[in-house]
C-alpha cells in the first residue's frame, strides 16, 4: 500500500509535531508501529490494548494493570511490565511506574495526585509503548514494523507475521512524505497513492471519483489567541472582536461546510454543552461595546503552512472592520492575535480541556468534580476573559483509492490499516 502524507518528519517522535497536520500524520504513522497500554473509543470509554485489565483504588492514585500475554516488540523482546515501565517512566517523571513484583504481567502506576483521567492519558499518542533500536527508530508491538526510514522522505513498514493482534492483510506500507494535499489528491487520482489525508469537506461536496472518504469527529479546535502583550488589553475589545466574527460564511465557504462553528473549546460531541457558548455574530453589540473607545489597530498572524488559515484570517479582518476594529493580517512583526489550530488528542473531555489549555497557553482548568457542570464551569473560566476566541471544531479527513478494501478509519482520525487489503494485491 502507498500512502502519502503532507508532513516531512526528520524524526519519528509524536512530541516533535509543530502543526495539527504534522500531529495527525505522526499519530497515524506511529499508531501503525506501536500500541498504547490502554485504548479509548470515541465515547471516551477505555478499551483494552496492551493491558487487558486494570484496577484503581478509591483515590485514583494507585493503578494496577494486567498485561496481555505473549506480546513481543518487533525485535522479539517481550513487552513485559518492566519493559513497559522503562518506556512510560521517563515520559512521566511524576508517576511511579513499575512492574509489580508478584507477577511479570502486572504493571503498577502510582501518582502523587488523584489521576481520574489516567486511562485516557495512557491512550494518548504520546504514550504509545515504543522502544527504540540502536538507530533510534521506534520499535513497537503493532502489526507493522519499520523496514526502512529515510528521514523527511520515506517510511517503509513491513507486516509483522507474529503480531499479537494477528498478521495484517497488507505485506508492506510505503509512506511518502512531503506531499501537499493537492499532490496527494492528484496521486490518489492517478493511482499513485492508496491512502491520503484530505482537507475535510461537507457531505454535500461531490467527490470527483469513487474514492472512499472518511471524516473524523471534530478533533481540532481553530481559535484566535491573544498574545500576552497584545494591544487588545481591553476585554471589551476582545469581546467585540469575538462578536464581530461571522463564523457561518467561513464554515460554509472557506471550510467547505466541514467545520462546526463554536465558541467553546471542547466540541459538542465531547461535552454536549457547546451550544451554551454563543457563536452568533452580533456586530451591533460589538459596536456598542466600542462606542466610547477608539480601538487600536491589531495584527493577526496565522500559520502559513495552513492552506486555509490566510483566507480565514482575512475574513476575520473583514468582519472586524464591520465592527470598527482594524485588524491587519500579517506574518511579519509582532502579532496581537494568532489564528491557531490545535488538536484535541483525546475524547476524554477533562483531559482534552487540559491539553487544549496547555496548547493555548491558558492556565490549567480548575475542575471541582467529574460532572458536566464542573467541566462547563472549568471551560467557562478559561474563556471568561476572552483571551481565546474559539472559532471552529474541525474534523480530519482521509481518502482511500477504490482498490483499498476494508477501509474503516476510526472516528478520532486514526487509520486502521491492519484490517485493509488491496485489490490485485498478493
Amino acid at each position, binding site marked *: 500500500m502507498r500512502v502519502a502524507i503532507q508532513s516531512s518528519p526528520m524524526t519519528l517522535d509524536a512530541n516533535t509535531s509543530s502543526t495539527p497536520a504534522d500531529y495527525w500524520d505522526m499519530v497515524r504513522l506511529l499508531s501503525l508501529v506501536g500500541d498504547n497500554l490502554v485504548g479509548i473509543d470515541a465515547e471516551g470509554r477505555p478499551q483494552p490494548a496492551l493491558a487487558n485489565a486494570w484496577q484503581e483504588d478509591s483515590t485514583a492514585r494507585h493503578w494496577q494493570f494486567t498485561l496481555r500475554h505473549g506480546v513481543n516488540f518487533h525485535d522479539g523482546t517481550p513487552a513485559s511490565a518492566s519493559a513497559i515501565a522503562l518506556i512510560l517512566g521517563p515520559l512521566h517523571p511524576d508517576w511511579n511506574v513499575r512492574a509489580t513484583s508478584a507477577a511479570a504481567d502486572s504493571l503498577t502506576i502510582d501518582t502523587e495526585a488523584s489521576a481520574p483521567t489516567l486511562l485516557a492519558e495512557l491512550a494518548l499518542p504520546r504514550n504509545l509503548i515504543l522502544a527504540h533500536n540502536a538507530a533510534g527508530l521506534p520499535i513497537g508491538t503493532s502489526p507493522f514494523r519499520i523496514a526502512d526510514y529515510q528521514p523527511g522522505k520515506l517510511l517503509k513498514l513491513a507486516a509483522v507475521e507474529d503480531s499479537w493482534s494477528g498478521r495484517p492483510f497488507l505485506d508492506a506500507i510505503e509512506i511518502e512524505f512531503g506531499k501537499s494535499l493537492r499532490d496527494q489528491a492528484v496521486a490518489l487520482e492517478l493511482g499513485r497513492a492508496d491512502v491520503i489525508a484530505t482537507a475535510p469537506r461537507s457531505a454535500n461536496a461531490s467527490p470527483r471519483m469513487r474514492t472512499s472518504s472518511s471524516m473524523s469527529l471534530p478533533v481540532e479546535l481553530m481559535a484566535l489567541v491573544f498574545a500576552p502583550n497584545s494591544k487588545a488589553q481591553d476585554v471589551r475589545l476582545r469581546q467585540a472582536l469575538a462578536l464581530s466574527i461571522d463564523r457561518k*460564511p467561513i464554515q460554509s*465557504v*472557506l471550510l467547505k461546510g466541514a467545520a462546526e462553528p463554536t465558541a467553546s473549546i471542547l466540541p459538542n460531541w465531547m461535552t454536549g454543552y457547546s451550544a451554551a457558548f454563543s457563536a452568533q455574530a452580533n456586530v451591533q453589540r460589538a459596536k456598542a461595546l466600542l462606542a466610547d473607545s477608539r480601538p487600536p489597530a491589531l495584527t493577526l498572524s496565522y500559520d502559513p503552512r495552513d492552506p486555509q488559515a490566510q*483566507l*480565514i484570517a*482575512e475574513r476575520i479582518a*473583514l468582519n472586524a472592520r464591520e465592527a470598527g476594529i482594524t485588524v491587519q493580517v500579517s506574518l511579519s512583526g509582532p502579532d496581537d492575535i494568532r489564528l491557531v489550530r490545535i488538536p484535541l488528542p483525546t475524547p476524554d473531555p477533562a483531559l482534552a480541556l487540559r491539553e487544549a489549555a496547555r496548547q493555548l497557553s491558558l492556565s490549567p482548568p480548575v475542575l471541582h468534580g467529574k460532572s458536566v457542570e464542573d467541566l462547563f464551569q472549568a471551560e467557562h473560566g478559561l474563556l471568561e476573559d476572552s483571551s481565546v476566541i474559539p472559532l471552529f471544531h474541525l474534523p480530519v479527513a482521509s481518502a482511500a483509492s477504490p482498490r483499498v478494501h476494508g477501509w474503516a478509519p476510526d472516528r478520532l482520525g486514526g487509520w486502521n490499516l491492519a484490517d485493509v487489503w488491496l485489490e490485485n494485491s498478493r
Partner: protein
Amino acid sequence: MSFRQKLLLLFAITILLCVTVMSVSVYGTMRRSFEQANQDRANSVAAQFRSEFQRRGEDVARKVESIAASETVQRIALEINRGVSPASADASGYLGEARTLAAQQQLDFLELVDHQGNILSSAQWQAKFGYPEPAITPATGPADSRAFLKREELPNGPTLGLFAIRAASIGEQPLFVVGGERLDQGFLSTLDIPAGTRVLLYQNLDSNWNPQSLLDLNGAAAGADRIAPLIEKVRSTGQETQGVIHWTADSADAEVFHALPLTGPNEPLMGILLVGSSRRPLIELQRRIISAAMLVGGLGLLVAVLASLWFAARVTRPVVSLAEAARRVAAGDLSAKVDVESSDELGELAASFNRMTEDLLQQKDRAVQAERVAAWRELARRLAHELKNPLFPLQVTVENLMRAKEKSPELFEEVFHESTATLLAEINNLKTIVARFSEFSRMPQPRRRPTQVNEVLRSLLRVFHAQLQDKSGITVQTDLDAALPAIQADPDLLHRALSNLVLNAIDAMPQGGTLTLHTTALANGEVKDRVAISVSDTGAGLTPEECERLFTPYYTTKQHGTGLGLAIVQSVVSDHGGKISVESTKEKGTTFRIELPA
C-alpha cells in the same frame, strides 16, 4: 554736477532703461512661451492619459466580456439559475474561480457578483465573498457599461482601479463580472512622457490627505507633502488647477504642476493626475537672458560712457569755453574770447559773447577815459575853486597896494604892511591847499605792528580834547571793548584815518550833538579775529546818494572841503585789509563802521 556729467548720466540711464525694457520684454515673451509650452505639454500628457485610459478601459472591458462569456462563468450562472448553488452554501465551489479567471486574463481585479450584488468570488480579496459589491445594486445592476474608475478595498488598504462590468445572463438571475486593472505606477509607466516632464497620480482614497497615495513611476512619490496644497485645492474644488512647487531654494529645481481631476461614474473625485514640468529650462534661459542683459547692459554702459564722454565733450566744449570766458569777464578780464568754429546755436552764442566782450571792453575804455576826464575836470574844478579863494584876496591886496602907491603914497606904508600880511596869509593858505593834495598823492604804505585800537582812539580824543571843549554842545561817548585784541596795524595811519572821521563828525554837528566812539571784537567761531570801530554823530545825516559817492576822491558835501578826507580813510582801511561802510539817516546822524583784521 556739471553739464557734461548730467549729459553722461542721461545717456547711461537711457541705455540702461533700453536694455532693461528689452530684457523684460524678452523674458516676458519667453515666459509666456514656456507657460504655453508647459500647458501644451500638460494637455498633451492629459490627452495621452485619457487616450491610454480609454484604451486600457476598452482592454479591461474586452477582458471582462471575455470572462463573462467563458465556460466557467456560464456554468456558474447556470448553476445559480438552477438553484444548484444557493446563496452562500456552496460559494465555496466558486471561491477560487475569480482568481483563476483573473490570472487567465491578466486582470488585477475580478469579482463574480450575484444578481443581489453580493460577491460570490473575489480574485483580489478571496475572503470577501458574501459582501456586497458597491458598483452593482440589486435595483439597477451595473451603473455603467463603459470602463470607469473605482475605489477597491484590499486587505492592505484601498487602491484605485479601472473597472468594467459585464453580465452573464442565463435565466433570470444575471451573474455580474466586475473586472479591472490597478491604476497605479504601472499604469503611469505605460504613458509616453515628454522629456522634462513627469506624471504623478494621487489616488483619492481617503477623506484626508494621504502622502502614501501619491504615486510616481517608482511607487510612493517623494516630497509628497509639498504637493499636498495643490492636491487639496483640487480635492476641495474638483477643478483643474496648477501651481509651482519649489523643491529647494534653487528656483531651477521647481516644477510647474497641472493637476487634473479624475472622476468616477457619479462624478466623485477618484484620483488626480499631476503633470509636472521642470522649470529648469525656463530658469536657466532666464538666467542666460539676465546674464546677457547684464553683459549687454554693462558693455552698453561702457560704450555709452565713452560715447557720451566724446559726445558730451564735443557738445559741451563751446559751453565750457563760454563758461570759462564768462568767469574771466566776471573777474574783470574783458579780453576773454571764446574760440568756437561751429555754426550752430552754440557758435552763434559764442560769437555774440565775443561781440559782447568787445563792446564791454570798448565801453570800459570809454568809461575810463570819461572818468579820467571827469576826474581831471573835478580836480581842475577843485583846484580852481580852492585856488580861486586865496587868489582873489591876493589880487585885491595887490590892487590895493598899487592903488595906494598911485593915489595915497602917504598911506602906502601902512597899506603895504597890511597887504603883505594878507598876502602872506593867503599864500600860506595856498600852500596848505597844495600840501593837502600833495599829502593825498603821497599816501605811505602802512608799517604794521601790534596796535591797540582803543589806545589809538584814546590818543585821538586827547588830541581833539581842546577842539571839543571849544565846540560847546558836543558830547563824547566812548564804548570801548576792554577785550579788544591787538591788531597788526600802522597806528599813525590809523590815527590819521580816525581823525578824519572824528573831524567829519564834529563838522556834521555845528549845533552840537553826541560823538560816539565804539569798539568791539568780532569772532569767527570762537577766535576773535577782527575788530570793529564805529564813529557816530547825531548830525544832519546824509542822503543815500551822498552815502553812495562819499568815498569818491574829491567829492565833498562841505562848503570848503577838498573831498580827500574820506578817500584817505578808505585808502588806509583798504591798505590794512579791512572795509569801511556808512549808515546814515537824515536828520538823525551818521555812523562810519570800520572792520579791521586782527
